[in-house]
């Protein structure tokens, strides 16, 4: 098998067996990135520094030094995650030349575990969108069918073998929808499980960092590394350290699985019965209301977060007439793209005196309501499954439909973990994903069920 096409787990195994080197792995994925540069998955490729880190990793291995779990493995991170001394663009002209002054905790954990950071991945500008079509640097293409969208360059890069795994972010499906569209495994962990320190905020009450990988086992390996309490993030949860990979087993025995809205999800979830789970259909009539709440909350929070981009402290500066107010207006107008400007305007609309109660406060109450509803559901069920998104990856350039994200946003608003695993192929032969949700901090149950599903699907092949 070509080196670049190994799973992350296989790459680690080959390194440990001394059947390959970090330099070989790094060169393999960089060659893939160069060969498929037209997919536009990556904003920055760290060829020189990645190869240098790979050489150091190989030297340490040869010298018999103690190595961490990801020693020598090339991974990518989304370009809203800070790495000191490197560009952080958030796919925006406003931050085109911005250099991160420090490293995000999640990225530092990858580095501390020995990972070779090989690239920063394309994304929707500041996270405004779910098709990676709003990037100031052009859309990332879907490697399965480049005429189709992905939901993030991180997924494109992992699916196109340009890295062995990626750290993405998910506010309302950024990781999970990308995984579904590209045939990958994507986990949005419980809110607070992975630190957001050093991650450019889009919508602080729902943003999560999480792993995007080609297999469930790879996902558990990256989650092991990135999860954990961080005193630098006040929303970081203080939870006992878990060993997700070590405890990973394809097991759903005795679990109660509820399926939202039937269809292909029900057919897919029926496979859990073979593993000893009970499966039943449940009604969840709040998807539309949740989507409305998501729109209100994220636009308000994104607007607030983006107020810091004003051309003064960092980012693009346009002086205009030279008056201070004109610096703000000209810098922001030139720096932000259309989708981001619309988000900012909507954020100010929902927070305006006239709309505060009926939009923002209503949305926050619905967020609380959803959390309570899931609390009730998880007294009856161990897992809840649904489609990740009920369509194949849309054709690029087609009008964006916010309702694509209706299944993804409920887990975001409730703060519960949700994973997307490849499920079936749609009418055009493109991959579709099954979303599995669990109660807060039950990532192990989620990963075990995802592994069971992955293996059952492989068995069908």
């Amino acid at each position, binding site marked *: 098998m070509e080196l670049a096409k190994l799973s992350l787990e296989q790459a680690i195994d080959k390194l440990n067996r001394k059947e390959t080197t970090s330099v070989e792995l790094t060169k393999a994925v960089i060659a893939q990135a160069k060969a498929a540069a037209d997919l536009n998955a990556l904003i920055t490729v760290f060829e020189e520094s990645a190869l240098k880190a790979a050489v150091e990793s190989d030297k340490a291995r040869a010298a018999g030094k103690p190595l961490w779990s990801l020693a020598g493995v090339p991974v990518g991170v989304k370009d809203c995650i800070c790495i000191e001394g490197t560009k952080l663009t958030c796919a925006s002209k406003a931050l085109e030349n911005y*250099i991160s*002054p420090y490293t995000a905790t999640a990225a530092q954990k990858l580095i501390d575990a020995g990972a070779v950071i090989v690239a920063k991945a394309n994304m929707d500008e500041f996270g405004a969108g779910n098709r990676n079509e709003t990037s100031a640097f052009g859309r990332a293409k879907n490697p399965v069918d480049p005429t189709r969208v992905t939901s993030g360059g991180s997924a494109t890069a992992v699916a196109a073998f340009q890295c062995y795994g990626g750290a993405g972010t998910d506010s309302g499906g950024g990781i999970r929808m990308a995984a579904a569209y590209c045939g990958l495994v994507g986990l949005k962990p*419980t*809110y*607070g499980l992975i630190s957001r320190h050093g991650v450019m905020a889009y919508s602080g009450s729902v943003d999560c960092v999480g792993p995007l990988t080609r297999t469930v086992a790879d996902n558990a390996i990256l989650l092991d590394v990135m999860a954990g309490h961080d*005193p630098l993030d*006040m*929303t970081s*949860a*203080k*939870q006992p350290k878990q060993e997700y990979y070590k405890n990973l087993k394809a097991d759903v025995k005795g679990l109660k699985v509820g399926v939202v809205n039937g269809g292909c999800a029900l057919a897919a979830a029926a496979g859990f019965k073979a593993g000893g789970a009970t499966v039943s259909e449940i009604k969840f*009539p*709040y998807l*539309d*209301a949740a*989507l*409305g*709440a998501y*729109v209100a909350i994220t636009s308000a929070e994104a*607007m607030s977060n983006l107020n810091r981009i004003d*051309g*003064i*402290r*960092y*980012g693009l*500066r346009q002086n205009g007439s*030279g*008056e*201070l107010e004109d*610096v703000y*207006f000209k810098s*922001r*107008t030139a720096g*932000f793209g*259309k989708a981001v*400007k*619309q988000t*900012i*305007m*909507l954020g*100010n*609309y*929902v927070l305006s005196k006239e*709309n505060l109660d*009926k*939009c923002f*406060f*209503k*949305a*926050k*109450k*619905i*967020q*609380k*309501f959803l*959390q*309570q509803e899931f609390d009730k559901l998880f007294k009856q069920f161990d897992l809840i499954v649904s489609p990740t998104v009920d369509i194949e990856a849309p054709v690029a350039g087609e009008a964006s439909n*916010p*309702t694509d994200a209706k299944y993804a946003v409920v887990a975001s608003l409730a703060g519960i973990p949700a994973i997307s695993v490849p499920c079936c192929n749609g009418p055009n032969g493109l991959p579709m994903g099954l979303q599995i949700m669990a109660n*807060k901090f039950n990532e192990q149950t989620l990963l075990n069920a995802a592994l069971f599903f992955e293996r059952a699907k492989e068995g069908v092949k």
Partner: protein
Amino acid sequence: MAVTHDELVKLAKVSGLEFSDKEYTELIQAFKQKTELMEAMNAVDTSGIELRYEPINAEKDLREDVVRPSLPRDTALSGAAEKDSSAFLVPATVE
């Protein structure tokens, strides 16, 4: 919840953004789509729901009230388009 051109002009002012007439027309359409989505919230009775949301119901750490090193001044200034050795430079706002 339809929004008017005049309301958008006011929102643009507080948003620190400028738009052409064509962009305002596009904004009206975008707002129509988004406000329709938000109207779906009315299907849920939230009258008994407390306006308080904790993303995680877990123990949180408050840091010790002690001084600790922060971002060095040079580093904090490194991304500014205009600066001197100690401060961000902005156009004068008083004469």
